[in-house]
């Protein structure tokens, strides 16, 4: 910038020039004053604005202390309370106001022996303005402590989360920490901004889940009794609405009491349904069958040679309950033939099989709102032997919820729906639906599931849930213990759907390392996971509005046209012989 620009007035009349400049600076200072005044007025205006906003909102500084956070109540689909806030007193001290620390320590210790003397002394000594002593007391405790009359001891009312159902829906709800912030489950999801999912505009409105508390309770109770009955190390289950993807009930044992969040940290108490991946075993044949039938390369009228085991190098894969003859496709399913399933998968093609697993969402993370999820472990591409074992559910791990969603899609007409913990209408579901198999294939899977319940490994389930037209598939997977498949430790799963004439609910129930109840019973899935599923279906079907119907016509209607002439006796009266 050139200096000449400013020396614009020629210095001819110096005196006059100065006068002009003198007045100029004066007027320029007035401009500056006006400008600065404006800035300060803006700031004052902003302060007034903040003051007004405060007056309008009645902001009470709740944000600073998390203890005052108000959480929306969580209710089930029928409005039953699952989690609510209750007001509880918490005791704090102002050490600088305590006159006699020794007296205060003695009195408090006498009233609340769980507060040790050394703890109290370390807290009360010093000149801090605020220390917590005990949080979340009962009103009676507060009253007694208050009456001790110790100066410098005071109480504030905090919100404490209370779960009336205790452990019933523990893994769904999760837990909050002492500051009422969600640390697990739906509580955590809601804190991470997931509130958008609920229809509640106002945070004081309750958040509604898709859970039905009655069904949830039945499932939880059934799993607790199964754990005991089969001396299992874990058990779990999930019930889905096949038309909407809503989770109606979900439980995993061992669980924890959300009212005591610390118990959730104990080993093995994670949510196995969403955060546990397992080799599910023969239930996976349902997936292989659905994909193979849908491809058109395999039909129900085909037969496969199951006389000899399938050799891969030095391994031979054989059947658990070997028929060792040529089996039709429905027979492969109901005898749960590994050989037949491998042959069927090979006819279909291992690459088609692998891409089908991706199509039904097994590679993707679970779309569920719960934060505790785990990714599946499936090889990128299958080797010959890898595809063979995968066809009957060994050598790849998925979560039980993945399986439940896939089965729901197989029976609902072929639409894969993301599972959800929040209520979803049929219209919303229709928009989210991804077709994975055809309606025709879906009808054939329904037939196979029902067939297996009537004549195959699902008869124990069917016996318990008579009249509810349930069908299902067992899976007795060998667990990998120290790098080898164990023959004594199994992970047993039962996948079922009811009522099969008009499917509404899909259930996946598993029992980890079950023992035989007595010498005359077995250890395979039909004996434990299957029977437990049957009992559960019989218990919850009436709640869900599924009425019993013993008409055989319903079962006969499930038989696909290509089998009606060929094998009319396929679905006749149940045979009491049990094959798992």
């Amino acid at each position: 910038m050139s200096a000449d620009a400013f020396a614009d007035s020629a210095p001819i009349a110096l005196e006059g020039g100065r006068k002009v400049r003198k007045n100029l600076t004066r007027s320029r200072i007035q401009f500056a004053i006006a400008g600065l005044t404006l800035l300060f007025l803006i700031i004052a205006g902003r302060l007034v604005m903040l003051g007004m906003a405060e007056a309008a909102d009645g902001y009470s500084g709740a944000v600073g202390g998390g203890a005052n956070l108000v959480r929306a109540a969580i209710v089930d689909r029928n409005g039953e309370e699952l989690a609510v806030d209750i007001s509880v007193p918490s005791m704090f001290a102002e050490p600088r106001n305590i006159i006699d620390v020794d007296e205060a320590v003695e009195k408090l210790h006498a009233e609340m022996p769980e507060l040790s003397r050394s703890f109290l002394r370390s807290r009360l000594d010093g000149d801090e303005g605020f220390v917590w002593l005990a949080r979340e007391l009962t009103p009676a405790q507060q009253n007694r402590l208050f009456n001790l009359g110790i100066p410098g001891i005071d109480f504030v009312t905090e919100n404490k989360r209370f779960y009336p159902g205790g452990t019933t829906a523990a893994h769904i709800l999760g837990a909050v920490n002492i500051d009422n912030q969600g640390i697990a489950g739906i509580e955590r999801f809601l804190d991470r901004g997931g509130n958008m999912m609920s229809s509640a505009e106002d945070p004081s409105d309750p958040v509604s889940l898709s859970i039905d508390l009655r069904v949830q309770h039945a499932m939880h109770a059934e799993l607790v009794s199964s754990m005991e009955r089969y001396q299992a190390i874990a058990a779990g289950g999930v019930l889905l609405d096949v038309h909407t993807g809503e989770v109606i009930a979900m439980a995993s044992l061992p669980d924890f009491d959300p009212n005591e969040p610390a118990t959730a940290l104990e080993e093995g108490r994670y949510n196995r349904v969403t955060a546990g991946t397992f080799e599910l075993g023969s239930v996976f044949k349902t997936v292989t069958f659905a994909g193979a039938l849908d491809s058109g390369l395999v039909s129900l009228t085909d037969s496969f040679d199951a006389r000899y085991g399938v050799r891969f190098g030095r391994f031979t894969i054989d059947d658990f309950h070997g028929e060792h003859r040529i089996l039709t496709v429905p027979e492969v399913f109901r005898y749960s033939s590994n050989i037949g399933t491998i042959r069927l998968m090979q006819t279909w093609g291992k690459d088609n099989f692998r891409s089908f697993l991706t199509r039904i969402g097994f590679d993707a993370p679970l779309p569920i709102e719960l934060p505790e999820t785990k990714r599946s472990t499936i090889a990128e591409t299958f080797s010959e032997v890898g595809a063979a074992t995968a066809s009957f559910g060994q050598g790849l791990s998925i979560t039980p919820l993945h399986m439940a969603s896939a089965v729901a899609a197989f029976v609902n007409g072929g639409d894969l729906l993301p599972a959800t913990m929040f209520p979803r209408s049929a219209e919303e579901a229709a928009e989210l639906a991804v077709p994975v198999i055809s309606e025709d294939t879906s009808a054939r899977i329904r037939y196979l599931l029902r067939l297996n319940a009537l004549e195959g490994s699902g008869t124990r389930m069917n016996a318990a849930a008579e009249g509810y037209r349930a069908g299902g598939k067992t899976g007795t997977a060998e667990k990998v213990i120290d790098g080898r498949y164990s023959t004594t430790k199994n992970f047993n799963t039962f996948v079922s759907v009811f009522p099969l004439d008009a499917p509404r609910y899909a259930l996946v129930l598993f029992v980890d390392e079950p023992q035989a109840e007595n010498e005359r019973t077995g250890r395979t899935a039909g004996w434990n996971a299957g029977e437990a599923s049957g009992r559960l279906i019989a218990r919850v079907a009436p709640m869900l509005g599924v009425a019993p119907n013993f008409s055989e016509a319903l079962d006969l209607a499930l038989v696909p046209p290509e089998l009606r002439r060929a094998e009319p006796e396929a679905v006749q009266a149940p045979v009491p012989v049990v094959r798992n």
Partner: protein
Amino acid sequence: MFSRARKTPLAEWWWTVDRELLVALVLLMLCGITLSFAASPPVAERLGLSPWHFVVRHSLLSIPALAIMIGVSFMNPKMARVSALIVLIAGLVMMVLTLRYGIEVKGARRWLSFAGQSLQPSEFVKPAFAVIAGWLFAEKMVKPEMPAHTIAIALLGSIVTLLMLQPDFGQTVLVVAIWTALLFLSGISWVIIGILGLIAMAGAYAAYAAFPHIARRIDSFLGPDGGGSYQVDRALESMMEGGWFGRGPGEAIVRRYVPDAHADFVFSAAAGEFGILFCIVLVGLIGFIVLRSMLGAQSQLNLFSRLAVSALTIQFGLQSVINLSVNLSLLPAKGMTLPFVSYGGTSMLATAYAMGLILALSRRKPEERLTTGLPAYRSAVGTEAA
């Protein structure tokens, strides 16, 4: 002692100094001490110091600050000029040393450690530059043949260079603002003002493009959900917590979470305890100081005093406005202290020096004439400085 019968230096000072301004400044310093009680204990505790660490240091520093302010206010314009020149040269030298020997804090080298005390030379350079630049502009207006503008621009250039090397964007803005204000006050045409405005906008954009930390701050300001505005959010929460009347001393909670509550965010941290009405009064006090000083500048006959006082006032005013705007989330977060209120030794002493200069240069000098630019009473009365 203050009798007008005899012209003692003290009496002379007392009757010519702007007493209302002096009182307002002392009040502001007292406010600073009061606010430090509210804002700084949580910060001190977080840093593992005694809760009253900052309060004690702030209060103790107020004593030399007051002494400097009053001492400097005894100076006559010439002494003020000489002192400013000395401070400016010393400050520039120290800034050069800072680049080499400075302590790096949060990615910037602004502090010089000196006998166990840390010192931020740029704080002193600001008022000294305001005075010297004011003098250069005044000289230019009286004697157009002097290359005063060139010198001023060279000075500005070197200070800006040194500041950007640290880097210290906030101080740069202030120093450039001082120079721009002087240009404006010395009467450049509106056309040039318009051109400079465009250049300033281009400069701001260049800073946004060239310095990632500035870009980040502006981005986080424009998109409040984009994260990174933690300080500002907490500051606003703290402001709103108190409401009109505040929660009372020691009662506010959010202030515990306000970062830099003792320094840049002292205003909002204290708001929770003292309330928004108190904040408005505090803003009013700062506004009064600014307007009173500007009016004082306007009434000066001596061109140098007028420009220097205006420049110093604008520096003080702008710094306050920027700090308050950041606290109130009107501007993106920018490290700038609230003069006399924020904790910071160098800042407080430098502000005291600047305010002392304002008091000194805005003293009433009825005998002074514009033609000479020198006080006429020099020969008649003799020395008037202490």
